[in-house]
Protein backbone atom coordinates (compact mmCIF):
# COMPACT_ATOMS: atom_id res chain seq x y z
CA UNK A 1 0.00 0.00 0.00
CA UNK A 2 1.53 3.28 -1.11
CA UNK A 3 -0.07 5.97 1.03
CA UNK A 4 1.28 9.43 1.70
CA UNK A 5 3.16 9.57 5.00
CA UNK A 6 0.45 11.60 6.76
CA UNK A 7 -2.26 9.12 5.89
CA UNK A 8 -0.82 6.71 8.43
CA UNK A 9 -1.00 9.32 11.17
CA UNK A 10 -4.80 9.24 10.82
CA UNK A 11 -4.91 5.51 11.57
CA UNK A 12 -4.73 5.70 15.40
CA UNK A 13 -7.33 8.48 15.41
CA UNK A 14 -9.58 6.43 13.14
CA UNK A 15 -9.20 3.38 15.39
CA UNK A 16 -9.99 5.49 18.45
CA UNK A 17 -13.08 6.97 16.80
CA UNK A 18 -14.20 3.47 15.81
CA UNK A 19 -13.87 2.34 19.42
CA UNK A 20 -15.78 5.38 20.66
CA UNK A 21 -18.67 4.53 18.32
CA UNK A 22 -18.49 0.86 19.37
CA UNK A 23 -18.62 1.75 23.06
CA UNK A 24 -21.32 4.37 22.56
CA UNK A 25 -23.55 1.70 21.04
CA UNK A 26 -22.37 -1.22 23.17
CA UNK A 27 -22.53 0.43 26.57
CA UNK A 28 -26.03 1.74 26.01
CA UNK A 29 -27.17 -1.77 25.18
CA UNK A 30 -28.50 -3.51 28.30
CA UNK A 31 -27.05 -7.03 28.39
CA UNK A 32 -29.88 -8.15 30.65
CA UNK A 33 -32.33 -7.72 27.78
CA UNK A 34 -32.11 -10.91 25.79
CA UNK A 35 -34.00 -10.62 22.49
CA UNK A 36 -36.68 -13.28 22.22
CA UNK A 37 -36.36 -15.78 19.37
CA UNK A 38 -40.17 -15.92 19.39
CA UNK A 39 -40.67 -12.52 17.75
CA UNK A 40 -42.45 -13.07 14.43
CA UNK A 41 -43.44 -16.60 15.42
CA UNK A 42 -46.78 -17.97 16.61
CA UNK A 43 -47.29 -17.72 20.36
CA UNK A 44 -46.50 -21.03 22.07
CA UNK A 45 -49.44 -23.29 22.78
CA UNK A 46 -50.70 -23.55 26.34
CA UNK A 47 -53.52 -25.08 28.27
CA UNK A 48 -54.06 -23.16 31.48
CA UNK A 49 -56.69 -22.88 34.15
CA UNK A 50 -58.40 -19.57 34.64
CA UNK A 51 -57.32 -18.21 38.01
CA UNK A 52 -59.59 -19.45 40.79
CA UNK A 53 -61.65 -21.71 38.50
CA UNK A 54 -61.31 -24.97 36.59
CA UNK A 55 -62.05 -23.44 33.19
CA UNK A 56 -59.28 -24.29 30.72
CA UNK A 57 -58.06 -21.70 28.24
CA UNK A 58 -55.89 -22.41 25.21
CA UNK A 59 -53.72 -20.40 22.86
CA UNK A 60 -56.41 -20.39 20.18
CA UNK A 61 -58.75 -18.50 22.52
CA UNK A 62 -56.46 -15.49 21.98
CA UNK A 63 -56.90 -15.41 18.20
CA UNK A 64 -59.03 -12.95 16.26
CA UNK A 65 -57.83 -9.70 17.81
CA UNK A 66 -54.58 -8.19 19.00
CA UNK A 67 -53.89 -8.79 22.69
CA UNK A 68 -51.22 -8.16 25.28
CA UNK A 69 -50.13 -11.19 27.26
CA UNK A 70 -48.69 -10.00 30.55
CA UNK A 71 -46.77 -12.35 32.86
CA UNK A 72 -47.06 -11.09 36.44
CA UNK A 73 -47.06 -12.41 39.99
CA UNK A 74 -48.24 -11.24 43.38
CA UNK A 75 -44.66 -11.62 44.68
CA UNK A 76 -43.23 -9.43 41.92
CA UNK A 77 -42.31 -5.91 43.03
CA UNK A 78 -41.72 -4.50 39.53
CA UNK A 79 -45.25 -5.59 38.55
CA UNK A 80 -46.56 -2.89 40.90
CA UNK A 81 -44.69 -0.28 38.82
CA UNK A 82 -46.44 -1.11 35.58
CA UNK A 83 -49.81 -1.83 37.13
CA UNK A 84 -51.27 1.72 36.89
CA UNK A 85 -50.40 1.76 33.17
CA UNK A 86 -52.10 -1.61 32.63
CA UNK A 87 -55.20 -0.31 34.44
CA UNK A 88 -55.18 2.77 32.21
CA UNK A 89 -54.78 0.68 29.04
CA UNK A 90 -57.61 -1.65 30.00
CA UNK A 91 -59.85 1.41 30.60
CA UNK A 92 -59.00 2.47 27.04
CA UNK A 93 -60.16 -0.91 25.76
CA UNK A 94 -56.84 -2.68 25.24
CA UNK A 95 -57.25 -6.42 25.78
CA UNK A 96 -54.77 -7.79 28.28
CA UNK A 97 -54.44 -11.42 29.29
CA UNK A 98 -52.79 -11.96 32.67
CA UNK A 99 -50.50 -14.91 33.32
CA UNK A 100 -50.12 -15.38 37.06
CA UNK A 101 -46.59 -16.79 37.05
CA UNK A 102 -45.42 -19.16 39.81
CA UNK A 103 -48.10 -17.97 42.15
CA UNK A 104 -50.97 -19.45 44.10
CA UNK A 105 -54.55 -18.67 43.09
CA UNK A 106 -55.26 -17.19 46.51
CA UNK A 107 -52.26 -14.82 46.42
CA UNK A 108 -52.96 -13.82 42.81
CA UNK A 109 -56.61 -13.05 43.52
CA UNK A 110 -55.79 -11.12 46.67
CA UNK A 111 -53.23 -9.04 44.75
CA UNK A 112 -55.76 -8.24 42.00
CA UNK A 113 -58.39 -7.26 44.58
CA UNK A 114 -55.87 -4.97 46.25
CA UNK A 115 -54.48 -3.24 43.14
CA UNK A 116 -57.29 -3.66 40.62
CA UNK A 117 -57.71 -6.11 37.76
CA UNK A 118 -56.74 -4.85 34.30
CA UNK A 119 -57.06 -8.28 32.69
CA UNK A 120 -59.79 -9.64 30.47
CA UNK A 121 -58.78 -13.11 31.62
CA UNK A 122 -56.27 -14.21 34.24
CA UNK A 123 -54.67 -17.61 33.76
CA UNK A 124 -52.78 -19.53 36.42
CA UNK A 125 -49.27 -20.77 35.63
CA UNK A 126 -48.30 -22.04 39.10
CA UNK A 127 -45.25 -24.07 38.01
CA UNK A 128 -44.13 -21.60 35.36
CA UNK A 129 -44.44 -24.22 32.60
CA UNK A 130 -46.15 -21.81 30.21
CA UNK A 131 -43.56 -19.21 31.21
CA UNK A 132 -40.82 -21.61 30.18
CA UNK A 133 -42.49 -22.24 26.82
CA UNK A 134 -42.86 -18.51 26.23
CA UNK A 135 -39.23 -17.83 27.15
CA UNK A 136 -40.05 -15.83 30.27
CA UNK A 137 -37.01 -15.29 32.47
CA UNK A 138 -38.29 -12.76 34.95
CA UNK A 139 -41.65 -11.13 35.58
CA UNK A 140 -43.03 -8.78 34.46
CA UNK A 141 -42.79 -9.58 30.77
CA UNK A 142 -45.37 -8.57 28.19
CA UNK A 143 -45.97 -10.06 24.74
CA UNK A 144 -47.86 -8.26 22.00
CA UNK A 145 -49.84 -10.67 19.80
CA UNK A 146 -51.52 -9.81 16.54
CA UNK A 147 -54.91 -11.20 15.53
CA UNK A 148 -53.27 -14.32 14.08
CA UNK A 149 -51.53 -15.05 17.37
CA UNK A 150 -48.08 -14.04 16.07
CA UNK A 151 -45.81 -12.42 18.67
CA UNK A 152 -44.90 -9.01 17.29
CA UNK A 153 -43.14 -7.56 20.33
CA UNK A 154 -41.85 -8.55 23.73
CA UNK A 155 -41.34 -6.16 26.62
CA UNK A 156 -38.88 -7.39 29.24
CA UNK A 157 -39.43 -5.70 32.57
CA UNK A 158 -42.17 -3.22 33.46
CA UNK A 159 -44.16 -1.65 30.66
CA UNK A 160 -43.84 2.15 30.58
CA UNK A 161 -45.89 4.88 28.96
CA UNK A 162 -43.13 5.78 26.50
CA UNK A 163 -42.72 2.23 25.21
CA UNK A 164 -46.47 1.99 24.91
CA UNK A 165 -46.75 5.24 22.97
CA UNK A 166 -43.69 4.87 20.74
CA UNK A 167 -43.55 1.14 20.10
CA UNK A 168 -46.58 -0.90 21.06
CA UNK A 169 -49.47 1.41 20.17
CA UNK A 170 -48.15 1.87 16.58
CA UNK A 171 -47.73 -1.90 16.29
CA UNK A 172 -51.32 -2.51 17.39
CA UNK A 173 -52.56 0.24 15.08
CA UNK A 174 -50.78 -1.47 12.17
CA UNK A 175 -52.37 -4.81 13.04
CA UNK A 176 -55.72 -5.23 11.31
CA UNK A 177 -58.26 -6.28 13.90
CA UNK A 178 -59.96 -9.32 12.46
CA UNK A 179 -63.40 -10.56 13.31
CA UNK A 180 -64.61 -7.33 14.85
Amino acid at each position, binding site marked *: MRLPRHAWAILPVAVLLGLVVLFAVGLRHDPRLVPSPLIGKPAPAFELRQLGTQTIHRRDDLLGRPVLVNFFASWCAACRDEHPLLMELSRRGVEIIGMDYKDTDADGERWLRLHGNPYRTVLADPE*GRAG*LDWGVYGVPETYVLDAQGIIVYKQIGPLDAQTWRDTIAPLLAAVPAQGR
Partner: protein
Amino acid sequence: MRELTRMRTWLRAVLLALCAVGGVHAQHEDLTPEQAQRYQKLVNELRCLVCQNQSIADSNAPLAADLRDQVYVQIRAGRSDAEISAYVTERYGDFVLYRPPFKPATWLLWIGPFALLLLALGIALTFARRRTRGAKAVRADADQLRRLLEEDGQGDRR
Protein backbone atom coordinates in the same frame (compact mmCIF):
# COMPACT_ATOMS: atom_id res chain seq x y z
CA MET B 1 -3.59 -25.16 71.61
CA ARG B 2 -6.65 -27.24 72.35
CA GLU B 3 -8.70 -24.20 71.46
CA LEU B 4 -7.11 -24.15 68.03
CA THR B 5 -7.81 -27.84 67.37
CA ARG B 6 -11.42 -27.37 68.34
CA MET B 7 -11.72 -24.40 66.03
CA ARG B 8 -10.19 -26.41 63.20
CA THR B 9 -12.68 -29.22 63.69
CA TRP B 10 -15.52 -26.74 63.71
CA LEU B 11 -14.25 -25.03 60.56
CA ARG B 12 -13.97 -28.38 58.79
CA ALA B 13 -17.58 -29.18 59.69
CA VAL B 14 -18.77 -25.86 58.29
CA LEU B 15 -16.83 -26.36 55.04
CA LEU B 16 -18.21 -29.88 54.65
CA ALA B 17 -21.73 -28.58 55.19
CA LEU B 18 -21.18 -25.90 52.51
CA CYS B 19 -19.94 -28.53 50.05
CA ALA B 20 -23.02 -30.61 50.73
CA VAL B 21 -25.28 -27.62 49.99
CA GLY B 22 -23.45 -26.94 46.73
CA GLY B 23 -23.99 -30.50 45.53
CA VAL B 24 -27.67 -30.77 46.38
CA HIS B 25 -29.15 -30.27 42.94
CA ALA B 26 -26.77 -32.68 41.23
CA GLN B 27 -28.47 -35.76 42.66
CA HIS B 28 -30.32 -37.62 39.98
CA GLU B 29 -29.57 -41.15 41.06
CA ASP B 30 -31.83 -42.87 38.58
CA LEU B 31 -29.76 -41.70 35.60
CA THR B 32 -27.28 -44.14 34.08
CA PRO B 33 -23.64 -42.99 34.36
CA GLU B 34 -23.73 -42.09 30.67
CA GLN B 35 -26.94 -40.07 31.13
CA ALA B 36 -25.56 -38.37 34.23
CA GLN B 37 -22.51 -37.35 32.23
CA ARG B 38 -24.71 -35.87 29.48
CA TYR B 39 -26.75 -34.07 32.13
CA GLN B 40 -23.62 -32.51 33.64
CA LYS B 41 -22.32 -31.48 30.23
CA LEU B 42 -25.63 -29.89 29.21
CA VAL B 43 -26.29 -27.97 32.41
CA ASN B 44 -22.75 -26.61 32.29
CA GLU B 45 -23.14 -25.39 28.72
CA LEU B 46 -26.42 -23.57 29.25
CA ARG B 47 -26.37 -20.01 30.50
CA CYS B 48 -28.70 -18.83 33.22
CA LEU B 49 -30.60 -15.79 31.94
CA VAL B 50 -31.46 -14.33 35.31
CA CYS B 51 -27.93 -14.29 36.70
CA GLN B 52 -25.91 -14.01 33.54
CA ASN B 53 -22.34 -15.31 33.52
CA GLN B 54 -23.41 -18.35 35.47
CA SER B 55 -24.34 -21.65 33.93
CA ILE B 56 -27.64 -23.21 34.97
CA ALA B 57 -25.53 -25.75 36.85
CA ASP B 58 -24.03 -23.02 39.05
CA SER B 59 -27.07 -20.83 39.48
CA ASN B 60 -29.58 -20.95 42.31
CA ALA B 61 -32.15 -18.89 40.41
CA PRO B 62 -35.59 -20.56 40.16
CA LEU B 63 -35.46 -20.38 36.37
CA ALA B 64 -32.12 -22.22 36.37
CA ALA B 65 -33.70 -24.93 38.53
CA ASP B 66 -36.61 -25.20 36.06
CA LEU B 67 -34.23 -25.55 33.15
CA ARG B 68 -32.16 -28.17 35.00
CA ASP B 69 -35.38 -30.10 35.63
CA GLN B 70 -36.24 -29.87 31.94
CA VAL B 71 -32.78 -31.20 30.96
CA TYR B 72 -33.20 -34.03 33.46
CA VAL B 73 -36.74 -34.92 32.35
CA GLN B 74 -35.82 -34.81 28.68
CA ILE B 75 -32.71 -36.95 29.13
CA ARG B 76 -34.88 -39.51 30.92
CA ALA B 77 -37.38 -39.29 28.07
CA GLY B 78 -34.56 -40.32 25.73
CA ARG B 79 -34.12 -37.07 23.83
CA SER B 80 -30.75 -36.32 22.29
CA ASP B 81 -28.41 -33.49 23.35
CA ALA B 82 -29.18 -31.65 20.10
CA GLU B 83 -32.93 -31.92 20.74
CA ILE B 84 -32.54 -30.59 24.28
CA SER B 85 -30.36 -27.68 23.08
CA ALA B 86 -32.96 -26.92 20.42
CA TYR B 87 -35.72 -26.97 23.05
CA VAL B 88 -33.93 -24.31 25.07
CA THR B 89 -32.82 -22.11 22.16
CA GLU B 90 -36.34 -22.13 20.65
CA ARG B 91 -37.47 -20.41 23.83
CA TYR B 92 -34.51 -18.33 24.93
CA GLY B 93 -32.39 -17.89 21.80
CA ASP B 94 -28.76 -18.72 21.05
CA PHE B 95 -27.76 -16.50 23.96
CA VAL B 96 -28.30 -19.39 26.39
CA LEU B 97 -25.61 -21.45 24.69
CA TYR B 98 -22.13 -20.86 26.00
CA ARG B 99 -20.96 -22.32 22.69
CA PRO B 100 -23.05 -20.46 20.09
CA PRO B 101 -23.69 -22.11 16.70
CA PHE B 102 -21.89 -20.99 13.55
CA LYS B 103 -24.44 -19.17 11.38
CA PRO B 104 -24.72 -15.79 9.58
CA ALA B 105 -25.74 -13.93 12.75
CA THR B 106 -22.71 -15.24 14.65
CA TRP B 107 -20.13 -15.07 11.82
CA LEU B 108 -18.68 -11.86 13.23
CA LEU B 109 -18.44 -13.45 16.66
CA TRP B 110 -16.55 -16.50 15.40
CA ILE B 111 -14.46 -14.97 12.60
CA GLY B 112 -14.05 -11.44 14.03
CA PRO B 113 -11.02 -12.12 16.24
CA PHE B 114 -9.18 -13.95 13.45
CA ALA B 115 -10.03 -11.23 10.94
CA LEU B 116 -8.69 -8.61 13.37
CA LEU B 117 -5.53 -10.66 13.88
CA LEU B 118 -5.01 -10.90 10.11
CA LEU B 119 -5.59 -7.17 9.74
CA ALA B 120 -3.07 -6.42 12.48
CA LEU B 121 -0.53 -8.78 10.88
CA GLY B 122 -1.08 -7.09 7.52
CA ILE B 123 -0.50 -3.63 8.98
CA ALA B 124 2.57 -4.84 10.87
CA LEU B 125 3.97 -6.43 7.68
CA THR B 126 3.40 -3.28 5.66
CA PHE B 127 5.25 -1.23 8.26
CA ALA B 128 8.06 -3.75 8.54
CA ARG B 129 8.51 -3.90 4.77
CA ARG B 130 8.51 -0.12 4.54
CA ARG B 131 11.20 0.05 7.21
CA THR B 132 13.47 -2.50 5.45
CA ARG B 133 12.92 -0.65 2.19
CA GLY B 134 14.01 2.54 3.98
CA ALA B 135 17.04 0.80 5.46
CA LYS B 136 17.98 -0.57 2.05
CA ALA B 137 17.78 2.93 0.59
CA VAL B 138 20.07 4.24 3.34
CA ARG B 139 22.51 1.39 2.71
CA ALA B 140 22.42 2.15 -1.03
CA ASP B 141 23.12 5.81 -0.29
CA ALA B 142 26.04 4.85 1.96
CA ASP B 143 27.51 2.58 -0.72
CA GLN B 144 27.24 5.29 -3.30
CA LEU B 145 28.84 7.80 -1.00
CA ARG B 146 31.73 5.47 -0.23
CA ARG B 147 32.24 4.86 -3.92
CA LEU B 148 32.25 8.59 -4.59
CA LEU B 149 34.70 9.19 -1.76
CA GLU B 150 36.92 6.43 -3.01
CA GLU B 151 36.83 7.87 -6.52
CA ASP B 152 37.56 11.24 -5.05
CA GLY B 153 40.50 9.86 -3.06
CA GLN B 154 41.93 8.24 -6.14
CA GLY B 155 41.52 11.53 -7.96
CA ASP B 156 43.50 13.31 -5.21
CA ARG B 157 46.29 10.81 -5.43
CA ARG B 158 46.50 11.35 -9.11
